[in-house]
C-alpha cells in the first residue's frame, strides 16, 4: 500500500512537470502537437493504472492508502487523499467539456478546486458495471464534487477511430438537459480511449422488472410511463429519435426517476423525412412499418417502442417476444392487431417486406383479451396502449398528445407544468408505491436502491 501511494505521488509530480512545461511552451506552435501526445501518454499511463486497480476491490485499499498520506484536511472524503495530484496552477486549455460551465451551482461545495472537468484524474473508477460491444462501463466517483458517475470507456480502434455510435451519443446528449434523459457530465479523451461521464443511476427497467416479476404496480407503471413519454416528448421536440427503446435502456433511480439512456443509435431527424438505415431498434420493440422495410420513419418509431414497454411493465413479460426474424416478428404483431390492408393503411402494399401471402390471416383482437392485465384496469389504460400500438405510423399517438391522455389524469396536475430539468418527484404526492412482491415478502423487502446494480445502463 505504501508503494501504491508513493507511485501516485510520483505520477502527480510527473504530470505537474509535464503540464508546467506545456504552459511555458504554449506559444510555440511547432511543438504543440508533440507535447499533446506526450501529455496524453501520461494520462494513458494513469488510466491503465486506474483500470488495474478498479478490477480489485477498491474502497478498502483506498482507505488503507489514506493512512500514509501526509496532509489530510478534514473536509475531504478520505479516499481521495492519496490520489491528489496538486495541479492548482495548471490551466488546462483543453477541458472542452464542462457541462456546468458558467452556471455551475456556485453555492455548492466543491471538494477540490484544482480539478477540472475533461481530465482523466478528476474521476476515480470504482467497479466494473458492464461490458458492451464497444465500451466498458464503470461505476466511478467524481473527485470534483463527490458525485457518483458512470464512466463509459470507449475503446478506440486504430483502423476506425472513434466509433460512430460514440460520436452520435456524445454529440446528441451534449445538447440535452432533461430530468428524464441521462445527463452527460463530461467527456474525457486520450489517444486510445474516450470516456463519457454520465450521472450514475442505480438500476434499469429490465432489472426492475426482473426483481418484480408478474407485472408492476399499476400506479408505478403510470409514473414510469409518464416519465418515459415526457423524456420522449423532449427529445422529439429537439428533433432527435432514440431508435433503440427497450427496458435495458431505461434507467431507474432509487426514487423511481426514469431516464432515457444509450443514445448510440439515436440521431437527429430532419423535417421532411429522410431515409435512414433500416437496421435499428431491437426487433421486439420495432414497429411494423419499420419491419415492413419502411425507412422514412419518424417519431412514431419511438412511440411503438414505448407502447411495447408499457405492456411489458403491466404484464411482466414482453409484448411481442421471442423471435429472431422479421417475418416472425410481424406475425406476432399481426396476431394482435390484425394484418393491415390497403384499406386500413393506404400505401402499405408499397413497402418492400409487405407480402400478404406470407402472413397468416388474423383479425384485430381486443387488447384486453391478449394482455389480461388490461382487464383489471380502467378502460383508459387499454385506450392509451391501443393508440400507441397503432400499426399505421401516421395514426400513432405522439408523445405530446399521450401525456395529455386521460390515463394520466389521476396524477397531480402540477406535473404537467414542470420545467424540463425538474423531476416529477418534486411534485407533492408523487411517490413510487411498494411493489406487490415486496409486500408478499416483507422479510426480504428490497428497495431497488439497496440491490447491487450489476448493470446500470
Amino acid at each position: 500500500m505504501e508503494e501504491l501511494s508513493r507511485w501516485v505521488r510520483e505520477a502527480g509530480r510527473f504530470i505537474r512537470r509535464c503540464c508546467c512545461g506545456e504552459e511555458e511552451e504554449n506559444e510555440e506552435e511547432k511543438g504543440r502537437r508533440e507535447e499533446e501526445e506526450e501529455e496524453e501518454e501520461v494520462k494513458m499511463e494513469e488510466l491503465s493504472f486506474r483500470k488495474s486497480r478498479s478490477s480489485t476491490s477498491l474502497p478498502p485499499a483506498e482507505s488503507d492508502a489514506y493512512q500514509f498520506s501526509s496532509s489530510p484536511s478534514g473536509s475531504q472524503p478520505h479516499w481521495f487523499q492519496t490520489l491528489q495530484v496538486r495541479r492548482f496552477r495548471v490551466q488546462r486549455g483543453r477541458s472542452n467539456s464542462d457541462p456546468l460551465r458558467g452556471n455551475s451551482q456556485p453555492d455548492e461545495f466543491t471538494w477540490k478546486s484544482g480539478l477540472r472537468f475533461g481530465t482523466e484524474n478528476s474521476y476515480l473508477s470504482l467497479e466494473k458495471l458492464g461490458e458492451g460491444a464497444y465500451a466498458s462501463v464503470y461505476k466511478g466517483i467524481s473527485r470534483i464534487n463527490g458525485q457518483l458517475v458512470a464512466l463509459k470507456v470507449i475503446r478506440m480502434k486504430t483502423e476506425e477511430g472513434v466509433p460512430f455510435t460514440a460520436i452520435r451519443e456524445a454529440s446528441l446528449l451534449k445538447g440535452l438537459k432533461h430530468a428524464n434523459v441521462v445527463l452527460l457530465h463530461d467527456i474525457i479523451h486520450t489517444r486510445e480511449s474516450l470516456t463519457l461521464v454520465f450521472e450514475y443511476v442505480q438500476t434499469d427497467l429490465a432489472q426492475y422488472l426482473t426483481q418484480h416479476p408478474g407485472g408492476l404496480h399499476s400506479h408505478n407503471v403510470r409514473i414510469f410511463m409518464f416519465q418515459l413519454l415526457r423524456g420522449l416528448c423532449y427529445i422529439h421536440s429537439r428533433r432527435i429519435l432514440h431508435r433503440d427503446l427497450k427496458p435495458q435502456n431505461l434507467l431507474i433511480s432509487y426514487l423511481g426517476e426514469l431516464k432515457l439512456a444509450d443514445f448510440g443509435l439515436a440521431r437527429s431527424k430532419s423535417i421532411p423525412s429522410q431515409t435512414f438505415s433500416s437496421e435499428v431498434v431491437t426487433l421486439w420493440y420495432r414497429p411494423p412499418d419499420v419491419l415492413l422495410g419502411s425507412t422514412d420513419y419518424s417519431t412514431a418509431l419511438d412511440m411503438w417502442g414505448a407502447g411495447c414497454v408499457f405492456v411489458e411493465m403491466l404484464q411482466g413479460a414482453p409484448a411481442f417476444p421471442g423471435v429472431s426474424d422479421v417475418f416472425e416478428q410481424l406475425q406476432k404483431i399481426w396476431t394482435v392487431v390484425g394484418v393491415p390492408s390497403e384499406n386500413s393503411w393506404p400505401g402499405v402494399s408499397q413497402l418492400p417486406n409487405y407480402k400478404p401471402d406470407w402472413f397468416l390471416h388474423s383479425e384485430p383482437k381486443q387488447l384486453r383479451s391478449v394482455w389480461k392485465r388490461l382487464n383489471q384496469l380502467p378502460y383508459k389504460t387499454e385506450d392509451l396502449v391501443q393508440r400507441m400500438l397503432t400499426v399505421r405510423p401516421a395514426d400513432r399517438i405522439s408523445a405530446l398528445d399521450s401525456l395529455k391522455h386521460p390515463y394520466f389524469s389521476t396524477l397531480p396536475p402540477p406535473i404537467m407544468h414542470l420545467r424540463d430539468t425538474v423531476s416529477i418527484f418534486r411534485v407533492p404526492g408523487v411517490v413510487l408505491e411498494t411493489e406487490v412482491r415486496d409486500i408478499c415478502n416483507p422479510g426480504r423487502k428490497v428497495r431497488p436502491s439497496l440491490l447491487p446494480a450489476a448493470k446500470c445502463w
Partner: protein
Amino acid sequence: MEGPSSRSSHTQDRPPCPPGRRASCDGAESDHARDTKTHFRVCRFIMETGVKLEMRSVPVATACVLYHHFFERVSIRSYEPYLVAMSCLYLAGKVEEQHLRTRDIINVSHRYFNSGSAPLECDKEFWDVRDSVVQCELLILRQLNFQVSFEHPHKYLLHYLPSVKSLVNRHAWSRAPVAETSWALLRDCYHGAMCIRHTPQHIAIATLYLALNSYGVELPVGEKEWWQVLCEDVTKADIDAVISDLLQLYDMEAKCI
C-alpha cells in the same frame, strides 16, 4: 503522397505543396485573403473527393461545415488543412450514416494530388497517413466539443421549392432550371465559411431568390413577399447578406484558378 501526410509534415522546412496551393501567393495579399483562398481550395478538394467517394450532398456539406468550424477555432498554420479535410470527410460519413473506409479516402486523395499515379502501397507511409487521419478525427471532435450534428439548408430548400413552384406560371417554371440552379448555388455555399455564418433557412431562401432572379422568373405580388411567407424571420437584408457572401465566393473562384 504530398498533400496530407503524416505528422512530421508540420515542421516548416517541408517542401510544399499540392498543385495550386501556393501558386497565386503574390506576397502583397494579406494573410486573411490567402487563408480564404486556401480554404476555398480545400473545400473544393472535399467536394471533389466526396463526389468520387459517391457521398450524398448532405454528408459532403457536413464535412465542409466540420472543416470550417475547425479552422474557426485554430490557425491554419498549425494544422495541415488537407489532412483535416480528409478527417472531416471520414467523420462526416460517421455522423451522417454513410460510412466510408479510410482506405478509400486515402486512395482518392492520393489520386487527387498525384493524378495518374498508382495507389499507395500498404507500407509504412500508408499506415502513417491512416493513423494521422484517425488521430485528426479525434482532434476535430475535441475542438468542436463533440458538437458535430448540424442542420443543413438542403431540407429547407427541398421544402420551399414545391411551394414556389406552385406560385409560378407553369411555362415559366419549365423554361428555367430553378431547382437545379438553386441546388447548385447551395452546394457552392460550402466553399466558404458563409455556411456557418447564416442560418440554414436564410441560405435556402437566398439561393432560391438568386436562382429565381437570375432567370427572371417572376412571382405574383401579394401582401407579403414570397420569402416572408416561407420563412417568417428572414429579411431582405439577410438575403442580401447571403447573396453578397456567395458572390464574393464566385469572385474568389476566378482568382483561385
